[in-house]
């Protein structure tokens, strides 16, 4: 009895310690966003909530002038980030599910060549191709537009690969049964493949939304006006380098706000997300 109890205890302790380590910085941020800049500036941030929360959040949200600088309002940056993250997630899923459908279900010349072409782009992260991509986007006049923010990030080998692997697990007989039932490729896609993929789509949506939301380097390059600032780049721009002091209370409030949409997506889609990762519903 005793050894089993001990063995049960160890993983729990490890997990609790892990959770504390992960949660502590977030807690500090939450607390920090409720104090005034003076308290934080003195370096003695208490571990309990202060009374400035409402004021700080209102200020960050509306972008009124801070004590030292003028920022893009959080509501603008949130909207930009939301548009970008949604376009990337939806666009990536739409394009990759269609290309995976083609690669997995159709026999056409150079099929495997196309598959490998898609596949090898996995080896090229955004950073590697960022200069040519920037050139193309600039030539197309897409600097400081939503299209410029989202389109270059939409093509996705990873999602294509994931969908293809899932499609390969759909039994051939199902396709044949549909053929005999009279469903053409488009009908089969809409009536059978899409519904069967919904948990995978949900899981990918969560991952891709967060991926899009957290984009840093690309938005930094492709936006130059404050109106097009995304929240992740916006936060880093708030933190001055060098000697200048920072409005930590506003930065922390902004950070908390920046966390909310990804958290909401994860919480809302958690059930599907987990389902998509663990089972394939056969």
């Amino acid at each position, binding site marked *: 009895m005793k050894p089993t109890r001990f063995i049960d205890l160890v993983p729990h302790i490890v997990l609790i310690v892990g959770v504390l380590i992960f949660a502590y910085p977030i807690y500090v941020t939450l607390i920090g966003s409720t104090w005034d800049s003076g308290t934080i500036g003195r370096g003695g941030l208490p571990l309990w909530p202060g009374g400035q929360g409402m004021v700080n959040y209102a200020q960050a949200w509306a972008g009124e002038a801070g004590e030292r600088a003028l920022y893009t309002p959080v509501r603008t940056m949130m909207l930009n980030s939301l548009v970008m993250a949604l376009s990337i997630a939806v666009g990536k899923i739409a394009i990759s599910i269609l290309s995976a459908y083609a690669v997995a279900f159709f026999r056409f010349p150079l099929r495997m060549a196309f598959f490998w072409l898609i596949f090898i782009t996995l080896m090229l992260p955004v950073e590697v191709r960022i200069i040519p991509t920037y050139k193309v986007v600039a030539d197309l006049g897409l600097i400081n537009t939503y299209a410029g923010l989202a389109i270059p990030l939409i093509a996705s080998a990873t999602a294509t690969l994931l969908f293809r692997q899932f499609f390969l697990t759909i039994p051939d007989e199902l396709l044949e*049964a549909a*053929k*005999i*039932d*009279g469903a053409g490729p488009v009908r089969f896609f809409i*009536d059978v493949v899409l519904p*069967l993929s919904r948990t995978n789509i949900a899981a990918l949506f969560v991952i891709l939304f967060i991926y899009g939301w957290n984009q840093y380097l690309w938005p930094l390059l492709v936006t130059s006006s404050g109106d097009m600032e995304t929240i992740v780049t916006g936060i880093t721009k708030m933190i001055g380098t060098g000697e200048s002091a920072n409005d930590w209370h506003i930065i922390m409030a902004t950070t908390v706000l920046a966390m909310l949409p990804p958290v909401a997506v994860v919480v809302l889609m958690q059930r599907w997300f987990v389902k998509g990762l663990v089972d394939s*519903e056969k």
Partner: protein
Amino acid sequence: MATVEIRNVRKSYGPVEAIKGIDIAIQDGEFLVLLGPSGCGKSTLLRMVAGLEGITGGQIAIGGRVVNDLDPKDRDIAMVFQNYALYPHMTVFDNMAYGLKIRGIPKAEIRARVDKAANILELGRFLDRRPSQLSGGQRQRVAMGRAIVREPAAFLFDEPLSNLDAKLRTQMRVEIKRLQDRLGITSLYVTHDQVEAMTLADRILVMNHGVAEQIGTPLEVYQRPASLFVAGFIGSPPMNVLDGRIDDHGEVVLVPGGQRLPLPQPRPTDAGRPIKLGIRPEHLAVAAEGFSIEVELVEALGADTVVYGRLPDSETLLVRMAGIPTVRERDRLTVTPQDGALHLFDAVTGRRVE
């Protein structure tokens, strides 16, 4: 309802010929079973009829219409698959209705047809369930329901019972037979199970290596196997095959061990011809003279008993006796074939010698 004609149909995968010219005309309402070991091409032939495989040579006609270049959906056939191939995200009702919906049949009629099929198959209670909530037998019935509601010219069954356990298989076999009798729809049924073939078929097409070894009613195939292959494939336990020679007068078959078995009719033209001699285990009976065997193994199956005997020249001879065992291992037995129980096959080609 329609005839299905298969005219000199061939199928090649590159240089490999999987089907080497099959010819058969299936009558309207007939139940044809394609029987053979795995890899003999029986499923390929069925899939060619369905339109899921291309036809390399020859013609397939359903209801008098050549369908070689038609899509599966235009061939007016319905297929039941081994693993059921139900749409996992649809209810039983939607699974059955899907093909009708695509064909644009009015909702009320779809409802009526599905209800009717569900009634026949006793699926009424399950119409709102998903396939994952059904047992194997129920899923297979849904798959059949999907075929029935289409009211096709022909049913194609691709080993539909292989995924079921033995008891359920027997039960479903009876159901399929009853269903086909009732609906009278031309059916092609692929199986490797000889019991399914014998019980379901109006005619059996026995295939081996892409060739039709024999086409005939179940009893024809059992009583007059056209080749050694068919003789060995149909019947359980399998037919005994011994090397023999017709004597110089063409009256008896000589088998090693000195045994002389009289032929039903004398065949002087075959005098001296080496031959393969087939005797079914159930056609051997204990007698005063005949093959002398030493019993090696006794399998008591309840209703009957299979005795594995060893001939003096060390060949094995199987004997099937009715009832519970009366002999034991190491006993000596003398058995002899019943009248007319000898099957003669050419020693080289394996074809039946009439």
